[in-house]
């Protein structure tokens, strides 16, 4: 199969309105990890987390790394 780039899309993506925004200067890494994880699981339009979830998500990621698996619960 020969994929071509004729479809080259203009800059049209579901952002930044639907992209959760951080409210401080140090949570960008956590946000990035959560974006990538959500994208890998098929989420595209609704990420379902925000600044208030960051302390929880940090601890959750520590658990996931320590146990070498992803949690299923939301």
């Amino acid at each position, binding site marked *: 199969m020969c994929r071509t780039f004729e479809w080259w899309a203009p800059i049209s993506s579901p952002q930044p309105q639907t992209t959760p925004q951080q409210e401080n200067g140090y949570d960008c890494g956590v946000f*990035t990890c959560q974006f990538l994880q959500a994208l890998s699981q098929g989420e595209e339009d609704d990420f379902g987390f925000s600044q208030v979830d960051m302390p929880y998500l940090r601890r959750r990621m520590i658990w996931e790394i320590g146990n070498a698996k992803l949690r299923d619960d939301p």
Partner: protein
Amino acid sequence: MAERRDHQLLWTFDFVEVRGSKGEFDVYPCWLPHQWPCQWHQGQGQGQSCQETLVGRSLLQHVLLAEADQGGLRQGQAGQVDQKGNIRPNASVHSMLIPCLRKFDLFSKDVILIPINHNNSHWTAAAINFRRKRIESYDSMGMARSSVHKVLPALLFSLWDWTQPFPRRCASTWTTNTFTRRRNRSILRIGSTG
């Protein structure tokens, strides 16, 4: 049920480093060589067929470690982007990279996920979404879109060139229009944003 195939020798960036501003960018596709073996992560999209996503092994770990140890960021530098948007990898890296890239068809995947480091001060996520045919940038500070949309096409086209089985002049005999159009567009795109 999503199937997971682990321990395949696949390759992606651990992350991409972007430096610069105001329309001039250096791009560094980075990875940590000892962590080359990557895995497939297959997720089940909502109401959609199963999508294949390429992620680095223990991606979360990489990002966390990289953030903790800024000094170690540069050990995986793979190359540099020149003025025309072509990426020139380091020679030794290149000789290892190309066979790895050719082992799988990068362009048949649905999504390629890329963590991006901006000027050593900010992390964002980006995705090359082949299913929706677009490049997506997810920035929690809502700033870095223009640089991502300038840099990722260059990366994409370089990957395409590196992984094609024939040199461009040979390939042009069977996809002439595609290739010329693609080249023009890539140059246009790189120069017209930001």
